């Protein structure tokens, strides 16, 4: 059997295995969320100022919240199986529309953050490891330590103070200039302009993580026997670093990145909130306080699917990075 057919079979099998996992996640989330006091109707009525109990009962019946929990769960599962994420009564919109609307900004922020964090993390880790115990290493290590230890919201706010208020280089918040109505390329530039601060803020934390991981991983590889062999047979240091050590040192970083894609959705809540970025994290956060369970379950479902898919991609990347790893 050739390699690509093997990979395909592997992917299909993994996807089938994922189905029961995702179902279990849904059921677990459903009961967990329902343990919270109060429901969507309470919140709506509370915000509205007041509402009669009859009116609230009517709303509950309309939302299906008057049904016993197992019935609600069955209805939800039935919808999911027919690929329907349900309806958000709070927004009076289908959940899928709400999520898709917010998915692109999230993806934009996530992808740019991952590229920036992994790219620079690998570079800095590499620099630190190859210049071990020099001033370069010290500067990079201190930088990584500080950014790792600084709370995200504070970094975000300082970015705004320095780059928006004082220097006026970037807008404070939002995804586009809502008074300008840019189209085409101008809009692209405008969104990129708005994307800079949130991306840098969110990347800093992960950048620190990858830098430290990469440095440690490189140092570990340098101590391996194959490096000694390579040196003994007279390979130049550059070849050893880039041809052998780097490739092997990347594995833990890739693993980490795979795990963290899921966390990025959650971790971006703070950055989305500080920069008013219209992403999924904020939507999830708000729907939790609004007890908009259909929407929240929908977001959780999408996130878990995302994690499954990313982990699968990571596994495939493994076998390209290290041909010794075989998928079976």
């Amino acid at each position, binding site marked *: 059997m050739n390699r690509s057919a093997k990979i395909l079979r592997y992917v299909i099998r993994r996807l089938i295995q994922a189905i029961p996992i995702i179902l279990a996640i849904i059921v677990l989330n459903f009961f967990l969320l329902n343990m919270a006091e109060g429901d969507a109707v309470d919140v709506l009525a509370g*915000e509205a100022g007041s509402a009669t109990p009859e009116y609230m009962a009517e709303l509950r019946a309309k939302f299906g919240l008057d049904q016993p929990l197992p019935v609600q769960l069955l209805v939800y599962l039935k919808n999911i199986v027919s690929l329907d994420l349900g309806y958000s009564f709070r927004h009076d919109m289908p959940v899928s529309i709400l999520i898709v609307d*917010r998915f692109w900004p999230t993806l934009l922020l996530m992808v740019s953050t991952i590229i920036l964090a992994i790219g620079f993390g690998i570079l800095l880790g590499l620099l630190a490891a190859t210049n071990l115990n020099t001033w370069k290493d010290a500067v990079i290590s201190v930088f990584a330590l500080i950014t790792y230890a600084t709370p995200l919201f504070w970094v975000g*706010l300082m970015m705004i*103070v320095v780059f928006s208020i004082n220097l006026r280089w970037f807008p*404070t918040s*939002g995804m586009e200039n809502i*008074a300008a109505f840019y189209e085409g390329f101008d809009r692209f530039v405008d969104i990129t302009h708005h994307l800079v601060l949130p991306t840098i803020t969110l990347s800093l934390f992960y950048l620190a993580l990858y830098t430290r991981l990469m440095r440690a991983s490189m140092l570990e590889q340098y101590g391996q026997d194959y490096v000694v062999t390579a040196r003994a047979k007279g390979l130049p240091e550059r070849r050893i670093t880039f041809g052998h050590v780097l490739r092997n040192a990347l594995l833990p970083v890739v693993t980490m990145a795979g795990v963290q894609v899921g966390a990025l959705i959650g971790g971006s809540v703070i950055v989305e909130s500080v920069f008013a970025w219209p992403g999924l994290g904020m939507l999830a956060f708000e729907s939790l*306080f*609004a007890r908009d369970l259909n929407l929240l379950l929908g977001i959780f479902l999408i996130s878990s699917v995302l994690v499954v898919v990313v982990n699968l991609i990571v596994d495939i990347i493994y076998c390209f990075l290290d041909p010794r790893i075989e998928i079976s």
Partner: protein
Amino acid sequence: MFKQIKYIFLFSFMLFGFSIYAQKSGGTLVYLVQPEPPSMASYISTSGPIGLVAPKIYEGLFDYDNDGQIVHVLAAGHTVSNDGKTVTFNLRKGVKWHDGKPFTSDDVAFTVMNVLKKFHPRGPNSFREVTRIDTPDSHTAIFKLRKPAPYMLRALSAYESPIVPKHHLEGTDIKSAKLGNKPVGTGPFKFVEWKKGQYVRLEKNKNYWRKGLPYIDRVVGRFVPDASTRTAAMENGEVLYAAYNAVPNIDAVRLKKREDISVTTDGYSMINPVALIEFNAKEGPFANPAIRRAISLAIDRQFMIDNIFFGYGKPATSALSTNFKPTGLYASMPNYPARGDIAAAKAELDSAGIKPDVNGVRVRAILDLIPYGEDYRRAGEYLKQVLGDIGIKLELRYEDVPTWLKRIYHNYDFVMNLNYFYQLPDPVLGVHRHYGTDQIRKGTHFVNSSRYSNPELDQLLASGAIEANAQKRTQIYKKVQEILARDMPVVNLFEMQFLTVYNTKLKGANNSALGPYSSFSEAYLD
């Protein structure tokens, strides 16, 4: 009398008509809407953020100026019959909905009878005496009342009672009509687009019935979840207007020193917010009125205002706010010292036989805090400290909104709750709900959660609601305030002053008593 008022308004309208040419037209007004509203259905929800947007789109029969006087909007004039049971509104002619259909008396009748009276949180109360609305022609609406309802004329603003298009709602489920997310009104601005998580965009209504208005071409309400970022956006000039403390007091006092930013407390008198403590008057340690009085005596209201709310507020001196002074209903009462009197509070407890134990503790209790932000947490810390001084040892509890609502208004699982209430433009609308026996309504929010019940008070409230004679009404409410100063099921702390922070480029945005809940029709950018 009403005729006179009408002429005064006509005259001021004419004056205004001459002055409008001095204002500049055009531009985009970006302002903060915090938090993002759940919908735009102001006809079924009085939720604050909806109020920041919807009154730009919908209009009411009236608006009110900063002195609380009626300004005619969709009603060009009105008359009240001598017995107070017939109120006739002459509607403005030639007004069109944003979709081009004409606005008629049918819309008014449908809005009040089929929408506000049935689904609006406060509508059933505001219009409770309305039995029928006659529409002899397309621009006359005659409200027939069971009993006189003087307070009704205070509840006809675009925020409180928006007039909605019948042709969009008739025959639909009003709670989930499309109109809720895509409003169609008669107001100065048309709804264009709502980008969830980002902004809601409105555009100038070119066919607005007030010729030459509005000045501004486009209004954008932005949602920015983080308070510090909101301040930064204000500082940067990205947003020009932030109401209802969207820029928190702590930043507002800093920003107002800048030349390009101003702060006002105008525009909240119709909302009339009062910070207070609700007690469980039925069971638990605070069922005894003496201990509630002692708490009211001990609290240094001025200290709370100065140190927690940055000087914005006025110590409460009665169950009614001093904003009811112009209508003659407010009376100053004992038991609400501005500076707090620990000795008097202790004496009150001693004489009620509530003695301290060996550790000096008389009562242990949990104080629930309204989950609307840090200020209330700090207020809770202060209360814990000051009430500790008189032997009431408190623990603080801060939960999320749904949990808290359920606890206070459904489960009654609390003894003491820091909260604030809108007293609204008339006690019948905003205050009665807090004290009447008929307002002990399990599961309904922001009503009588104390479960305080006093037949004498109920009687007074009932007669206060229908009394048309101003002097008699003053007498009734004086007695109401005396009873409440004695029994104190609720201890009023202070009259809150919300802040509107705005860029001085923006002019004419604060002309209505509804302030941020009004229309921006006269606002312009300089």
